[in-house]
């Protein structure tokens, strides 16, 4: 019994001293410090205990470090919600969050975040992973100080990865231009003129105009700018292709329903929206695997939009055959019904669709040119959808029947084609493709009840410009309109560029009412 008590007292005393020691550590001051105080706190902390301090830096950057409001005790929290687990920072003891409001995140602002990243970068120059070392040098390059440069110079000798070596040499050249002997400076300018990076260009710009090296620096800047402009042109082309692929994706379903069947479907945009909402719903079902959810969404969105499309065709459009004005009004009404239905079911707010990791960021070709991955995937997806549809219409028996019905309905019926059935399936196909477009668009833009309206005009524009009834026309029209828009945008501005493109289309249609690729022969009479 006495043993028990004494050990208990021992434990208590131990705990108390631990608490007292704890009170003097920077950990307790962190909670309520201002941003600049936090910075000095971490600086001194790194000098006294660098491994703990660096782990705190990492935690701050990840946003996992919280504190209890009334005790200032630091805790680690992954999900800030009542009932979720937490870990005490000092003792590692597990617990639960009894009340969400009792804990608050240790706050970080942009200035402090940059400082934390720089601190971490300095420590990561010796990391085993070359990618980490690369981003570490990159971070230092953004805000190069003499201390940083000395640090880089120290690790340069033992660096083996060629990418990291290149970047380190760039940093050292910038540093030499700033601090080196005249001979070193001249050498540095030659080195920097070979680079494509903005850092090199800015370093050369900083050379004073009265310096003997000024003319050399100026020609260096010109050389960099010249090469960067070439890549800029490639980038503009890519932007145009990407905008074009979005236009093609949005319009290609319409190329089938309007182009092949001749139905003016004003609810086309809402079918795109349904595809996007399908993506949202599937992501809600599979919250931890956004990538997988996106892939599953493709067939699901095709089914959802396709079935709704078939419903619209069987329920409304087939009774209005040959009355385009009534079809237009009826489908416009359907589009309003679908919008309001989505507003009532999902709320009028936009829904957030997550971008999977493999689609985020960009593919960096060199310092002057990088292609955004999400758009690269959309361009690829657009081409796949296009060629699958083309094959389907050209080579399958359904495609044969669709073309037969659209060219001469009576004759096709006489040959035993069930034209009503073909109509429904064709409309379903066009609508399903709109659903696929919705999945792709959910990765680029907002998912909300109004999203369809943004695409309906563009879709009709692309189909009419390309030539009604011609899939190739839709592809060429979409891509060329996209590129034209992006070529105009830099000097005309976004608003004027759009107007100019529309004016051009109006003039073009005046001259060529059947679009870029008019149908010829018997198909044209249908």
């Amino acid at each position, binding site marked *: 019994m006495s043993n028990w008590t004494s050990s208990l007292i021992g434990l208590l005393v131990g705990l108390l001293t631990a608490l007292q020691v704890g009170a003097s550590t920077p950990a307790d001051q962190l909670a309520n410090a201002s941003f600049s105080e936090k910075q000095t706190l971490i600086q001194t902390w790194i000098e006294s205990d660098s491994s703990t301090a660096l782990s705190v830096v990492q935690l701050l950057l990840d946003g996992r470090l919280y504190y209890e409001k009334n005790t200032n005790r630091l805790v680690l929290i992954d999900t800030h919600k009542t009932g979720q687990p937490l870990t005490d920072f000092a003792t590692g003891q597990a617990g639960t969050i009894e009340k969400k409001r009792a804990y608050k995140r240790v706050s970080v602002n942009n200035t402090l975040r940059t400082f934390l990243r720089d601190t971490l970068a300095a420590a990561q120059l010796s990391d085993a992973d070359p990618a980490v070392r690369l981003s570490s040098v990159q971070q230092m390059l953004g805000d190069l100080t003499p201390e940083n440069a000395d640090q880089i110079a120290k690790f340069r000798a033992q660096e083996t990865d060629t990418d990291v070596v290149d970047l380190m040499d760039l940093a050292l050249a910038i540093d030499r231009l700033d601090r080196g002997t005249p001979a070193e400076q001249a050498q540095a300018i030659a080195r920097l003129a070979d680079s494509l990076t903005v850092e090199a260009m800015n370093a050369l710009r900083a050379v004073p105009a009265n310096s003997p090296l000024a003319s050399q620096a100026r020609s260096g800047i010109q050389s960099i700018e010249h090469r960067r402009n070439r890549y800029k042109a490639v980038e503009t082309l890519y932007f145009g292709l990407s905008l074009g692929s979005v236009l093609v994706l949005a319009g290609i379903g319409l190329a089938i329903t309007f182009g092949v069947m001749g139905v003016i479907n004003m609810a086309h945009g809402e079918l795109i929206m349904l595809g996007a909402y399908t993506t949202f719903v599937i992501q809600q079902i599979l919250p931890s695997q956004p990538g997988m959810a996106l892939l599953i969404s493709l067939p699901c969105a095709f089914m959802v939009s396709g079935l709704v499309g078939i419903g619209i065709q069987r329920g409304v459009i087939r009774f209005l055959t040959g009355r385009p004005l009534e079809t237009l009004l009826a489908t416009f009404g359907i589009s309003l019904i679908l919008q309001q239905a989505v507003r009532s079911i999902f709320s009028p*707010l936009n829904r957030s669709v997550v971008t999977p990791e493999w689609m985020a960021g960009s593919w960096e070709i060199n310092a002057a040119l990088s292609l955004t991955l999400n758009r690269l995937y959309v361009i690829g997806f657009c081409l796949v959808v296009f060629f699958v549809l083309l094959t389907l219409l050209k080579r399958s028996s359904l495609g044969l029947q669709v073309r037969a019905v659209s060219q001469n309905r009576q004759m096709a019926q006489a040959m035993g084609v069930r034209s009503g059935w073909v109509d429904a399936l064709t409309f379903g196909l066009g609508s399903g493709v709109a659903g696929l477009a919705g999945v792709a668009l959910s990765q680029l833009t*907002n998912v909300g009840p109004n999203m369809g309206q943004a695409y309906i005009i563009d879709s009709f524009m692309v189909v009419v410009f390309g030539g009604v009834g011609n899939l190739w026309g839709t592809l060429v029209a979409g891509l060329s309109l996209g590129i034209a828009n992006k070529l105009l945008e830099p000097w005309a501005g*976004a608003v004027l560029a759009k107007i100019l493109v529309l004016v051009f289309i109006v003039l073009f249609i005046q001259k060529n009412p059947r679009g870029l690729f008019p149908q010829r022969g018997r198909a044209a009479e249908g």
Partner: protein
Amino acid sequence: MFPIAGKKTLRILPIALATALSNAALAADTIKVGVLHSLSGTMAISETTLKDTMLMLIEEQNKKGGLLGKQLEAVVVDPASNWPLFAEKARELVEKDGVDAIFGCWTSVSRKSVLPVIEELDSLLFYPVQYEGEESSKNVFYTGAAPNQQAIPAVDYLMEQGVKRWVLAGTDYVYPRTTNKILEAYLKANGVAESDIMINYTPFGHSDWQSIVSDIKGFGAEGKKTAVVSTINGDANVPFYKELGAQGVNADDIPVIAFSVGEEELSGMDTAPLVGHLAAWNYFMSAESESNDEFIDAWHAYTGDEDRVTNDPMEAHYIGFNMWVEAVKKAQSTEPGAVQDAIIGVSVPNLTGGLSSMMPNHHISKPVLIGEIQDDGQFEIVSETPGLVVGDAWSDYLPGSKDLISDWRAPLSCGAYDVVSAKCSGQEL
């Protein structure tokens, strides 16, 4: 259209019934409050929440015993994001339903559409959204921010952070154009060179931001610290931020400070790539005060959804409604003329822990907060003005309006009084 209207009617039905039963004699004699927010169409995305906020505030006031011994009754109409319909519905609210005050509108064009009607019928409109200023009506109370309560402090904060180059990006309509004109004048007055300011406008709902983001990147890569001041509106924000994330522009390099992105807009975005970008408002859901905690709890209880967020225009309605209630108590009447006189000088608690007052120019005083976006869709408050900022109806930085003041108290009673020529050019009593 029907499901929303139906659900809400059901929700307020018990209140109406309770009123009728408990006070049969006075049942016909309620104080009517008009709620003029779009429940369908483009603007439903923002305005539906404000309609719910008003219903909640009215319900709470009724639980406290109503006003002047009477119960309040909300009259909800749907102007369907259609600007001329706003004017028609406002007329209907005042003439047919006999409401004593209207809480509503979101876009400036909807307010401008209601303005002549509300002035002609001499009723009251409480307008809860940040706007471009350059207006002061005897019949309108501006509880949202004027440019000096949002844009200018935001730019001040960024200057403190060392920003030297500025991109002013906005949607092409009156609010961004006026705000950017004011900001451009302000920046130049603070020694920023013309070549360090880039102004860019895009159409409504613009969805392809590739070239613009690339231009911003280029503009920001010239060695000086650069920031984007965004007056981009509504749906165009999501693709804008997505493109920023995709092109690797993060908040350390080029922070974006937005005046139209709040908690509710963030709830529809993937916030991971946005961390560190900024917004300037007079209220954030993360503000620490008891009144805010109570408001959030009440909102969660009212909507039955723990994940619903609160935002700045909601706080503006909270302040505006409470000011109206206080003014009615003070005047002992709901008659608009009496309330107009009584409301000037009324102070009520705001949700950030202070008091807001109605000023003689029909704008209110409130603190300005700068917040950084967090990955959970909330804002971390990184800066707060030391005191309250009084809304300025006429900007001091525009040549046409710098001499104008607005004071609706007797004897001046003028919305646009030129202090140099000593003439009143606005609406007069």
